[in-house]
């Protein structure tokens, strides 16, 4: 059976890279004694796949991975068993049973919600400007940035990948951005473009990015959270 596990990665664990998170969960599943399926051969590995990788330094409360399991108990029991063997800043939030024909999390991810806050000590004299013109920035028809790859630099219009954005109540920037293999936009790039728009220098340490949720396309083309594709095990 296919299970989808939702977790949060906060605090000091934002310094653990994606590959290490994968290794972390393989060990955690073993510690929790969950009935995960393994590949064949001399070096069997767990059949788990992760949704959208999170950059180093970014925190999240909307991370997912899928796993093939031989058996499952209840959502509550599995969440508790995993959390009993977790590190402090890594929490399992939900376990859902997926339909058999469900595609893997990695294949279906289409968008993510982010909260970008200004870190204390940064942009102190520019706070008003920073929070005063976000709407103007978004109202542009085109937002062009230079996307650097290993081989080339390319001028890209990111406006279409910003699905929704506004200043949130907590004096931070909320944004829903295209995520996944077809279109992918990182919030850092939006902030860089916004700083360019304001004519103030972009400081990569000036912002703390936090992912709130990861989405996929629902049957009517609407965005639903990855968890919503599965059922709670009661």
């Amino acid at each position, binding site marked *: 059976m296919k299970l989808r596990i939702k977790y949060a990665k906060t605090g000091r664990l934002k*310094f653990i890279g994606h590959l290490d998170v994968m290794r972390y969960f393989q060990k955690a599943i073993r510690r929790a004694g969950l009935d995960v399926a393994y590949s064949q051969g001399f070096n069997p590995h767990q059949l788990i796949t992760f949704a959208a990788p999170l950059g180093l330094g970014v925190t999240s409360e909307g991370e997912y991975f899928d796993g093939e399991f031989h058996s499952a108990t209840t959502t509550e029991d599995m969440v508790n068993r995993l959390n009993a063997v977790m590190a402090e800043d890594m929490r399992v939030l939900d376990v859902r049973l997926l339909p058999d024909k469900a595609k893997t999390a990695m294949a279906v991810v289409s968008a993510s919600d982010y909260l970008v806050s200004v870190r204390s000590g940064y942009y102190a004299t520019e706070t008003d400007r920073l929070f005063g013109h976000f709407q103007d920035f978004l109202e542009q028809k085109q937002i062009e940035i230079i996307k650097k790859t290993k081989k080339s630099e390319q001028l890209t219009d990111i406006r279409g990948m910003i699905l929704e954005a506004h200043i949130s109540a907590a004096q931070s920037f909320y944004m829903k951005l295209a995520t996944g293999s077809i279109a992918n936009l990182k919030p850092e790039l939006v902030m860089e473009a916004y700083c360019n728009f304001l004519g103030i220098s972009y400081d990569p340490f000036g912002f703390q990015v936090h992912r709130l949720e990861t989405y996929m396309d629902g049957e009517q083309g609407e965005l639903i959270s990855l968890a919503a594709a599965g059922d709670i095990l009661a």
Partner: protein
Amino acid sequence: MEKLALSDEILMTIEKPARYIGGEINHVKKDLSQVDIRFAMCFPDVYEIGMSHLGIQILYDMLNKRADTWCERVYSPWVDLDRVMREQKIPLFALESQTPIKAFDFLGITLQYEMCYTNILQVLDLSGIPLWASERTEDDPIVIGGGPCTYNPEPIADFFDMFYIGEGEVVYDTLLDLYKECRKNVWDRAAFLREAAKIPGIYVPSLYNVGYHPDGTISNFTPKYEDIPQKITKQVVMDMSDATYPEKPLVPFIKVTQDRAVLEVMRGCIRGCRFCQAGMIYRPVRNRSLEDLKRYAVEIIENTGHEEISLSSLSSSDFTELPELLNFLIEEMGERKVNISLPSLRIDAFSLDVMSKVQDIRRTSLTFAPEAGTQKQRNVINKGLTEEDIIEGARQAFLGGWNKVKLYFMLSQPFETYDDIAGIADLSERIAEVYYDTVPKEERTGGPVSITASASFFVPKPFTPFQWAPMDTMESFQEKAHFVKDRFREQLNKKRLRFTYHSADVSLLEGILARGDRRLAPVILEVYKNGGIFDAWSEFYSHERWMKAFENHNLDPEFYLTRERAEDELFPWDFIDIGVTKRFLLEEWHRAKEGRMTPNCRMSCSGCGVAKWGGGVCIEAKN
């Protein structure tokens, strides 16, 4: 969450920030107001190396089992963070509490190899602790060293307040109880050191005077006070069931060098290879019980979630209950989908059978460690492995489907001739021929047979029969290596053979430090002051920096390296009693000269001296 010692800005700009954040699975947190003793345990190398070390896990577990003690960890900051900490004057901190080392009661440093000596100074310096023990004040932690290099601690003696010589399980409680007692009164560092020096196994270097002959050898090594012992006796756990095992070892977030569960099956080695220090200093052989090991294996896997388990010992093939243990592990770990990583076992029918069950034969190579090329030379070094053993092992392995063989050798051994090193190529050729004689043409699948021989530069070590031996020169080693390389090119199956050898500058330094004396401390300090850290990493090692420091201090490296030591010379490490007597080592040195073998401890007792402790293999043989 409590604050990290390093800011996000620093952590985001250095390599692998997870090295410095702590919080790993199974780490121990305690309430500072509830503990009397804060102990910082340091492995003076990068995190991934230090976290792979079983000894630290054992001590961490043992010390934290005391309610009054909180043991935390600290490793050498990598060169990138080292630079930042110096620039921004950030004090070195322990991982668990993220607070400065300087505030601790003890800083324990494990000494696993000589090339970490400059890193010791890095750790002290970044902590803000005076490098010379004599300059420390009442506010500084007690700096204590442990591990294999304490069997000659003299080159670094002046940087340490004390050394613990032997296995940590024995007198740490006594030492910490004494410390607590001394802390109840007005704290007097010197008085504590003086008392601690009376605990068996505790060596306080500042309480001893060393005198030298005009030729530079040691004339006397004397305690400054009458109540301070002449000899320091190594501490050894005689009943392994008394030695607790960390059933909840730490699990790092990032991939470390040994990313697996480790099961220590025994301590010591019965073999008595004459070049091997571990084989002498860890005598006698002591097994853990099969039942304990089975229980630990399951507990460790359940508590860590590791996907691999490995056995640790000097020679696992000599563990008496190895078949029972391996059969248990194959079954139990197979069900749990945990891989078994086998240490180098002696190649025979049994080990080949086990290996074929747990490894992919096509991908793994078989390892033999003949160490020398001829039987004559293997007798000199007392390596009880015959050419017949190797040929027969290889034959069975080839029949079993293996076709890659690795051979380990050492060059520049005592009494070695060019015939002996020619034997390295000849033996490798013979193994290739065994393949073609054994495996019929139609069964030679999976690529051609490949034999890789590699040679290292032999370094004489204290407390071995070769402690009297001169080390070879660099020029001579290079010549020999080239000779062997040429000899490989002359072999019939030369295309199936490969010979590599390790560059040797660093071996010379290892040789100097291994048998060095107290006069080396200023040299080590100068190298450190000139930027020397991470000497164990070839990209940071500078031979010139070391040689210049020797010159500046008027010390001749050859005094420590190529000098033939007299049989009655007083060595810097002779104040340590490892159980094995100097008389026995000297007899072994003589037997080596004559090419005579000494039987292993299970065949018969050769009277090395450790039987006085009445345990392990010494009594096993008499039952």
